[in-house]
């Protein structure tokens, strides 16, 4: 029953977004909304591995950029349409996720994090040297006229609304299934989980693949959004920092945490970019993250629960 309700809430969110589109607010709102929604997907996807399974991935830019560059390759090679780009971007990044899943056999804790960070650097170097997708110069996409809504900003905004709803619903159902309980067990103690019958390797591979898939999905529409992609923007360190900071601020143990974190922090960054300076948004992340780690290590969700219990 609860699953049905969650599904209905998802549909309602999409409906609300459509209504918003009907209102024809300032086009910049869609442009900014896209970024916030992109972060909802990134934070939720990151949290499947980082929050549920406890493996901190510093390589978010690698997955995001792999989604974006898979899209660029498919546009360049076949002129593939957006839905295909999103699916393919997700699948390729999911494969990379499966690969780093096998890393967890040997690398735990901070060593895993360093390896994922290195992965991002290696992949960026490869892309810089691959001229077919633009190399170091970057890739310029000339968009055809938007097929729906009459504007790419609105169309991409709606695409992101849909993708974010799907990502959150999937993360939520994983969290509440036997898989989520097994992941929580291995996060708490991997050795004990294995000895209690939890197939830890298989569950970790599932988590890294699913997490990678949705990070790639978040990156696939990126070329359409910016129309000019260069390695340094697709592999931006901001993605690594935000992917980690947003779930930490919202709370990592539930699906709601990354959503809350992404909406709050993502919106704050967008507002700060416009009203103060585009450099300030990283400062905001830093300050807020430090405050939360010190004062509310279980994030907003944990804080609310603690206050309610009193």
């Amino acid at each position, binding site marked *: 029953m609860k699953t049905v309700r969650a599904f209905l809430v998802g549909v309602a969110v999409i409906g609300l977004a459509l209504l918003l589109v009907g209102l024809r607010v300032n086009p910049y709102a869609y442009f900014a909304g896209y970024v916030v929604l992109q972060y909802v997907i990134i934070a939720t996807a990151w949290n499947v591995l980082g929050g549920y399974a406890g493996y901190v991935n510093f390589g978010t830019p690698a997955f995001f950029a792999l989604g974006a560059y898979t899209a660029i390759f498919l546009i360049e090679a076949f002129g593939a349409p957006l839905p295909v780009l999103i699916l393919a971007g997700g699948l390729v990044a999911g494969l990379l996720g499966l690969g780093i899943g096998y890393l967890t056999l040997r690398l735990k804790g901070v060593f895993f994090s360093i390896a994922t960070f290195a992965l991002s650097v290696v992949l960026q170097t490869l892309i810089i040297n691959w001229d077919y997708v633009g190399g170091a110069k970057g890739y310029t996409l000339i968009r055809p006229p938007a097929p729906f809504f009459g504007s790419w900003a609105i169309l991409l905004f709606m695409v992101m609304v849909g993708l974010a709803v799907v990502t959150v619903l999937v993360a939520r159902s994983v969290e509440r299934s*036997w898989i989520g*309980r*097994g992941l*929580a*067990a291995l*996060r*708490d*103690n991997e*050795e*004990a*989980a*294995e*000895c*209690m*019958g*939890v*197939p*830890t*390797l298989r569950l970790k591979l599932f988590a890294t693949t699913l997490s990678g898939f949705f990070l790639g999905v978040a990156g696939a529409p990126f070329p359409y959004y910016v129309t000019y992609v260069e390695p340094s923007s697709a592999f931006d360190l901001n993605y690594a920092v935000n992917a980690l900071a947003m779930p930490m601020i919202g709370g990592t*143990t539930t699906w709601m945490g990354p959503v809350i974190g992404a909406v709050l922090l993502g919106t704050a960054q967008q507002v700060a970019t416009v009203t103060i300076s585009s450099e300030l948004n990283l400062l905001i992340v830093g300050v807020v993250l430090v405050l939360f780690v010190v004062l509310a290590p279980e994030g907003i969700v944990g804080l609310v629960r603690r206050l309610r219990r009193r």
Partner: protein
Amino acid sequence: MSRPMADTLLEVDAISKRFGGFLALDRVSLQVRAGERLGLIGPNGSGKTTLINCISGALPTDGGRILFEGRDITALPAYQRTRLGIVRSFQIPKPFTSMTVLENLGIPLEYAAPARSHGAAAALDILRAIGLDAKAQLRPTGLTQIEMRKLELARAMAARPKLLISDEAMAGLSSAEVDDILAILLRLNESGITIIMIEHIMRAVMRFSQRVVVLDAGTRIAEGTPEEIVRNPAVEKAYLGE
């Protein structure tokens, strides 16, 4: 080597384990009969925990075979051995700290136990039998040392073991608490569970075990009834030196 008997539950056949240049286990063999209470003792560093890590699948072996109910399980990952019925508890309790005591039992019930024994009711039954039902809704961090040990045993029970390997479940407990844990283990054995007990507290091992195996420096140096073991000069030498 003696031939396996018809009711052999676990047979460890000449397994070795090497850590770099250090031979932690040197062709150790061991047979455990169904329903037996076996004590495994030896000085610190003799390879007891390594041996049970190999049996439970936490460590791969470097040679030798392990048979459970006649089936070769040497290559099986740990979680599959658990599902077959080999369950171990840890020397240092390793509870799932983000879950309540009840939820801790839910993991093995869901992942290891046969399908019919699922659910909170089954978990509560186990907690009641072990005397931890009043703490069902607490987080493990709020438990005392003995309660933590009991949780470790309760969680192992939730996996519905045929063979329970108890790794120093009593270290650091008071004498009354040792009796408490001992009584639980004896009850479990009466219900049909075979138990291997690794323990440093001699009073407990000798009272509990029907048979004792002694390890020293990675080899098996003695085997016999508790009475035989205490009189064995090789065992005395291993513990006290010459």
